[in-house]
């Protein structure tokens, strides 16, 4: 009698967990890809841990705090390693809706991954999309900070160069203008050479000096 009941229970359980059954999810693990040499073998103990993690996730859902490990059924374990699982209700006559299981797994995905040293890609729940972590978004974008620093440095350097250029220009303008003043003074002073003012000796107009007679007039032409 007891054996009959046992067979009945396992038969029902077998019906509940089938590939492509209602509310069943496929899981794929790529342990060798993730861990390489440190890969562990997938055995019934690991399956027990998986069932425990799924039960833990379901217990976090309101109204499902009484989920136990034996409510989680695993089947069709392949050497890939992949298998199907369902979560049954406390009376174990039907499975919990897929939406609930999905949201529970999504909430606790990180804990489940860490229990197996895997990540979202190597521990894959088919048809349960993982929530992707957004890239860190600081309040002030970093590039503006660096831009501001370099912009200020270049602006200050430019201002310094322009100001020193203006100073040099002013100094140069004062320099030649001082020289020009002394030249003007030279011109204003009338130099006297041998009692005759220099202006008179100015040959600009092309004046002929009367005191000097050309040779031609002295000699009588032949």
């Amino acid at each position, binding site marked *: 009698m007891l054996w009959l009941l046992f067979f009945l229970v396992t038969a029902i359980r077998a019906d509940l967990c089938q590939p492509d059954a209602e509310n069943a999810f496929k899981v*794929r*693990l*790529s*342990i*060798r*890809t993730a861990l390489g040499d440190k*890969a562990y073998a997938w055995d019934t103990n690991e399956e027990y841990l998986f069932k425990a993690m799924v039960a833990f996730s379901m217990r976090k859902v309101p109204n499902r705090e009484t989920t136990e490990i034996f409510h989680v059924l695993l089947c069709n374990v*392949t*050497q*890939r*390693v*992949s298998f199907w699982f369902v979560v049954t209700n406390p009376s174990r006559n039907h499975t919990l809706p897929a939406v609930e299981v999905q949201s529970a797994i999504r909430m606790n995905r990180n804990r489940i991954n860490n229990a197996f040293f895997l990540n979202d890609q190597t521990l894959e729940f088919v048809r349960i*999309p*993982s*929530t*992707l972590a*957004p*890239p860190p978004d600081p309040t002030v974008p*970093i*590039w*503006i900070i*660096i*831009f501001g620093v*370099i*912009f200020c440095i*270049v*602006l200050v*350097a*430019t201002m310094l*160069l*322009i100001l020193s*250029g203006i100073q040099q*220009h002013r100094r140069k303008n004062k320099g*030649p203008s001082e020289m020009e003043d002394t030249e003007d003074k030279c011109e204003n002073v009338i130099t006297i050479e041998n009692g005759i003012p220099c202006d008179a000796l100015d040959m600009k107009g092309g004046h002929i000096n009367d005191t000097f007679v050309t040779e031609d007039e002295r000699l009588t032409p032949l």
Partner: protein
Amino acid sequence: MEQRRPLWATPLQFVFACISYAVGLGNVWRFPYLCQMYGGGSFLVPYVVMLVVEGMPLLYLELAVGQRMRQGSIGAWRTVSPYLSGVGVASVVVSFFLSMYYNVINAWAFWYLFHSFQDPLPWSVCPLNGNRTGYVEECEKASSTQYFWYRKTLNISPSIQESGAVQWEPALCLILAWLVVYLCILRGTESTGKVVYFTALLPYCVLIIYLVRGLTLHGATNGLAYMFTPKVEQLVNPKAWINAATQIFFSLGLGFGSLIAFASYNEPSNNCQKHAIIVSIINSSTSIFASIVTFSIYGFKATFNYESCLNKVILLLTNSFDLEDGFLTASNLEQVKDYLASAHPSKYSKVFPQIRNCSLESELETAVQGTGLAFIVYTEAIKNMEVSQLWSVLYFFMLLLLGIGSMLGNTAAILTPLTDSKVISSYLPKEAISGLVCLTNCAIGLLFTMEAGSYWFDIFNDYAATLSLLLIVLVETVAVCYLYGLSRFESELKAMTGRALNWYWKAMWGGVSPLLIVSLFIFYLSDYIITGTLRYQAWDAAQGQLVTKDYPPHALAVIGLLVASSTMCIPLVALGTFITRRLRRGGTAPVA
């Protein structure tokens, strides 16, 4: 008391200025592409031939003219012949166009540089969509680096007609770029001469660091082997020779007037022949060096993508057939595929359409040039390296140095004729003229930061300088050889430097180089005429890739205006001089 012309403090500053101007972004992003397209190692043959036959003679000619005439481009060509000052004006106009759009590249380099200080690099991950279950669709279809370039940096519009608004982030970077350029040219040769030590030498430091890093990357040898395997059949392809000639021509920066401007600040006794040979050899060697670095990075990227593709296929097969994890590797993939095809034919045929054929060759063959290479391909390789922030900062710092070095030459080409002109320099000091030029260029350059700005950038990049420069250099060579007189120029050079002119230079200037330029000119004209309508690549956000579109009429009008405004200067100014002389002669006739 006449104000002495400012001079370079040492001849080394002049050499560094020329190197810093000639070695620019084209060496990094154009030469590796040409090498890949036209036969790898065998492209070096036409390249070296063109360097010796075209590059060195024309470079020597420009430096000699500048050093002899001791004025900027307008004054120098006016001295050669009063009817030819139009050549100088055309050079200034082309330099003006170039500086307008070239500094936008520096702005983009600044943008990427500032974004390199984050972990993870912003172009290595796609941003998440609204409910955080997946990535933004545009980023999924394209790649994260393409998304960051087209959406975050350019915010590109689907076509050139939709201009959109000015994007404030690239606009800020552009203002910063112009401020940096102004800082460097503020004091003329005094400040430029010191800056060129950095802009000429530091890029080499970074390239050497990258060479060592690149050669030690996994898969670098694949890229190098691919590049250097010569495909000798390309030697008979005329396009290889034409592209080699074009690359040498534009890489040295001939015809813009910058080289004349730099050489005008030389001592008259400077040995510019030696400097011309040095600068052209260094420029070409840098191109080859940069392409070694680029190809080792290509090899790394291609190998990485190939291995990711293989891993995706392996994962697909492992999941579909529930094979043991780790059983399928790259080495047994083909055998297992055959086994699965025979053992489970129905299941295999269902999976088969999704299995991509991964090929290292096809990854290596994706040849890219220009901004695509610098900002998409390189960043994709960098994000997969360890300590990617460091490599990213180094790389964009190098791009900035190369770009600013070239900008110094461009602005010198505009400023030297302006400061030489007595009219302008009597009203305004040098700093104010430089400031006004930078301000004008910056204001116009803001047009390139609009949403359609990248399309206008491509127009300027492809059409503003190409035809005009060929014409300018042709007129320059013919003018010096036949108008001014080759023997007269030769004797003046000998008097100036103390060295006789080698027969080789005379042969090149007189015959070979002008013929080469004429053939290049004819080729480009016929190419433009044969292709008919001009097309451009537009980014389609829905598909996540580039699509080809035709230019609208107003864009074609702008292209025509660009080419015409510089080339027409030469005949127009000649005509104008002729008319003014005639009027003056006619006006003074009654007096005589």
